[in-house]
């Protein structure tokens, strides 16, 4: 057992024993899952067919990824978008800071984006003297708390209203014990002034549309729309796997993402952006850039056994249904992307040998695979990660020999039956130890063959 796995198990045991935490997460997750199940049935005649079609479209995307990225780049560039490519997190940060310097940015607003979490953008902006404020309410809460998102869709679901009220009271001066409405209003008032003053708006992208050269951002609050509408520069950062071939594909992917992510038919705002304001438009940014991020995705792509993990649309459904996630919570994983999808992709995206132990954070029950709206076989990919980790790790000679012996015995019924004598010996050697089970005089296979012959 590696030190990392030991530490992970210790943290997981501790979290799982925290009954208050478990009860809190179970309540939120049950609410999410119920809403999601209701919406899937109400919205799709045949959910299985819908997700299979989505999986096929994504399979097509991956088979044609370099071509679709070039097509996106061509169409976006023609609309005046500056398309930039970043090999890793450091390059993405440098590109963004370069843009901030070029446009003399002092204040930036950001809408919810896991990709910017992945490249640890906020710290880099602050180090460069640029004020950056999260505009999504959940993200603002974790930013003020100095932590990171607990869940890829609901960043602050682990906090109670009372805890958030206390945080806002301390940081924003709201009344102690404020209600959800009052807290939301406080965030709204704070952000209104920032939206009006910020020179740079940063978003992620849920989808990149190759044929339209547009990015798509999915949200409920309106903060992403304001982030793309008010500052004079808009920069979107997106993983290279986010591309879809056609604008028309949104007709499937938007409702699929909404029903799986938040249990809505469609989220409140689905916004496409493809360039700065045009000559006929009254407002909008004067410059738009899209940073296409690799950061390990090409490594994942080069491993056909796990490549399908790049289909992921980050809906969070696999986290919500995962019995392990629900017990140990989002932070125990220690990664930006938690839950089953995080355990699948992180070992490939980050330094080798660091996160392989996360594939143990699964009961292999398959609930994640059944919930996935793009038909990713998540629990099989976890097994594949285990296989890979074992192959790469040099186990001692004892384990190797023991496993070979086990395989040799268990691959033939007769060998297993002959081993029963060994079992009786062990039992005889340890009398009174209830833990050694009593063996039946004859095995099922032996009794069956007796029956057949009689």
């Amino acid at each position, binding site marked *: 057992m590696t030190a990392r796995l030991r530490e992970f198990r210790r943290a997981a045991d501790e979290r799982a024993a925290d009954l208050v935490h478990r009860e809190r997460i179970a309540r939120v997750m049950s*609410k999410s899952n119920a809403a999601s199940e209701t919406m899937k049935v109400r919205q799709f005649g045949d959910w299985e067919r819908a997700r299979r*079609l989505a999986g096929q479209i994504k399979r097509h995307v991956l088979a044609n990824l370099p071509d679709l990225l*070039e097509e996106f780049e061509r169409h976006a560039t023609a609309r005046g978008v500056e398309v930039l490519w970043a*090999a890793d997190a450091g390059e993405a940060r440098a590109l963004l800071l370069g843009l901030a310097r070029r446009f003399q940015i002092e204040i930036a607003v950001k809408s919810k984006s896991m990709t910017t979490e992945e490249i640890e953008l906020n710290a880099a902006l602050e180090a460069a003297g640029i004020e950056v404020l999260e505009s999504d309410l*959940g993200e603002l809460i974790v930013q003020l708390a100095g932590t990171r998102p607990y869940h890829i869709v609901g960043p602050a679901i682990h906090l109670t209203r009372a805890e958030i009220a206390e945080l806002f009271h301390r940081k924003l001066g709201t009344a102690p014990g404020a209600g959800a409405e009052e807290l939301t209003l406080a965030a709204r008032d704070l952000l209104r002034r920032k939206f009006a003053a910020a020179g740079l708006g940063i978003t992620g992208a849920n989808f990149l549309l190759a044929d339209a050269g547009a990015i798509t951002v999915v949200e409920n609050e309106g*903060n992403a729309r304001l982030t793309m509408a008010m500052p004079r520069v808009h920069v979107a950062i997106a993983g290279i796997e986010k591309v879809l071939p056609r604008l028309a594909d949104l007709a499937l992917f938007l409702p699929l993402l909404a029903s799986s992510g938040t249990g809505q038919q469609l989220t*409140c705002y689905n*916004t496409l952006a493809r360039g*700065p304001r045009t000559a006929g438009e*009254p407002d909008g940014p004067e410059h738009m850039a899209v940073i296409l991020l690799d950061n390990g995705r090409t490594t994942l792509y080069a491993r056909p056994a796990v490549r399908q993990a790049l289909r992921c649309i980050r809906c969070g459904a696999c986290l919500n249904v995962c019995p392990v996630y629900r017990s140990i919570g989002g932070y125990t994983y220690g990664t930006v992307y938690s839950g089953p999808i995080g355990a699948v992709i992180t070992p490939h995206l980050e330094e080798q040998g660091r996160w392989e132990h996360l594939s143990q954070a699964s009961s292999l029950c398959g609930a994640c695979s059944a919930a996935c709206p793009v038909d990713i076989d998540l629990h099989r990919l976890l097994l594949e990660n285990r296989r890979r980790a074992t192959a790469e790790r040099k186990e001692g000679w004892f384990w190797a020999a023991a496993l070979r012996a086990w395989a040799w015995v268990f691959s033939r019924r007769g060998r297993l039956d002959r081993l029963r004598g060994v079992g009786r010996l062990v039992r005889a050697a340890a009398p009174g130890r209830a833990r050694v089970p009593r063996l039946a005089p004859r095995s099922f296979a032996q009794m069956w063959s007796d029956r057949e012959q009689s």
Partner: protein
Amino acid sequence: MSSRERILGRLRAAQPPAAERAAPPREPDRSIYRDYPARAEDYVAVFAERFAALRGEFLRAAGLAEAAARVAGLLAELEASEACGAARGLAAADPLIAAVLAASPALAARFDPPERLGMANAEMLPCLAGLTRARALVARSGGIVLDSGRDGGRRLSVFPPLHIVLARAGDYVASLEEALARRAGDADWSSLTIVHGPSRTADIEKTLVLGAHGPKRLAVIHVEA
């Protein structure tokens, strides 16, 4: 080598053989959904029902004068709820909007004209109502499709706390894919947004709160005749 070449090169090197790169699966169509409004004459009623379920306010007006009265009524409610003085709004450039405002000079005086749509961000802070048309109203989901070219730019429909959409019978479509197909060929927008109800959040204990950062109230006034 640039990062662009390196990324594309690594993808190409690992790309599956050409045989697996066949044409994409067909575009999603109505067959995957249920609840598909079949008859065009039902679109308005279906939209009104779905829109109301999203907490949108659907109002009917028999003519231009009644539409103007509806807009004035919404402004009066806003003044009461926000406890503010005379609420001012800003209107997108559109013949129907112009005609409705022309029907009531008192109302027209409370709306800045479309020439002001480009005002600085700071000037927008006191603007309480945005008045726009829509490119399409989606019956099946209760959605409203707006574009930055013709619907007053990017800010008008999201920054003010009240957003009012004027609609006519020809604006309604059955579904999102029809709405997207209508818009895809257009070259004149830099941003397109599909709206489903007033702004909302459930980030605090999954409690629904309306008016997170966008409009707290969203109304469609369906103008007949």
